[in-house]
């Protein structure tokens, strides 16, 4: 009787062990994982802000006064294309440069959107854990590449139809804002000239 009970108890113990062993193992692994020290980059919340401030100063020192005012007040910079029309003699297309968005090409005469040039300037060394330039550095990189070698930048970029990544309605509104902004700027210049004729 005792022997039978002992055997039964041993069998029951073995069954219970089979049932709870995986669970115990999992709990132990979780416990070890919680105690493991994982090295994380030290995050400095002000770092990105300081980087952007530095980038803005650099952008300001490179682009013209008009482009800087445009970026500061409207959030983008317009760059004229280098191709001119034989018929009108005017510029066939221009670009809007946004930070970390595709470059939008448009026809300045009609405001028609022509396409999006998707281009990035990733730093694969990932200093500080990110490959993204500060916003103003991204704008400056596009500005330098477009004004310095438009053909190479356009050849590098992926071309998409308008509205793929940048809302076409937003761009159309931005072009309207740009025209209003330029008109106001011309009025200010004219007023200044009237007030102080040379």
């Amino acid at each position: 009787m005792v022997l039978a009970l002992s055997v039964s108890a041993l069998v029951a113990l073995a069954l219970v062990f089979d049932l709870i062993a995986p669970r115990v193992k999992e709990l132990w692994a979780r416990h070890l994982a919680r105690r493991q020290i994982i090295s994380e980059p030290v995050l400095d919340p002000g770092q990105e802000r300081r980087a952007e401030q530095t980038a803005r100063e650099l952008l300001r020192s490179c682009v013209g006064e008009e482009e800087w005012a445009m970026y500061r007040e409207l959030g983008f910079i317009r760059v004229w294309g280098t191709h001119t029309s034989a018929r009108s003699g005017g510029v066939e297309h221009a670009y809007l440069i946004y930070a970390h968005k595709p470059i939008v090409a448009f026809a300045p005469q009609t405001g028609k959107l022509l396409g999006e040039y998707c281009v990035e300037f990733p730093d694969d060394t990932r200093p500080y854990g990110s490959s993204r330039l500060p916003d103003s550095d991204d704008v400056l990189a596009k500005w330098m590449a477009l004004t310095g070698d438009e053909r190479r930048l356009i050849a590098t970029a992926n071309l998409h139809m308008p509205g793929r990544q940048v809302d076409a309605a937003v761009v159309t509104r931005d072009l309207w804002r740009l025209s209003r902004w330029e008109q106001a700027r011309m009025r200010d210049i004219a007023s200044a000239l009237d007030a102080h004729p040379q």
Partner: protein
Amino acid sequence: MKPGHGEVVIAEGDVELPQDEARLVAEFRHQLDAGLWAAVPLAHADGHREAVMVRSFTEIPRDAERVIFFPRAAGG
């Protein structure tokens, strides 16, 4: 230009001084070998601004104040 940092000065010198020029040439090559693009921002007398992309040290205008290195463009 560097992510998380903005502008970083990597070398300064006077190209008219031979030892400075040699150092600047070496740093220029080092940056291009690392895959960066180089541009010289220019300001014309009429106020127009533009950049010149340079691929060799000799393409840099002698009176250039600075050369800006930035990551190579890639299709997004």
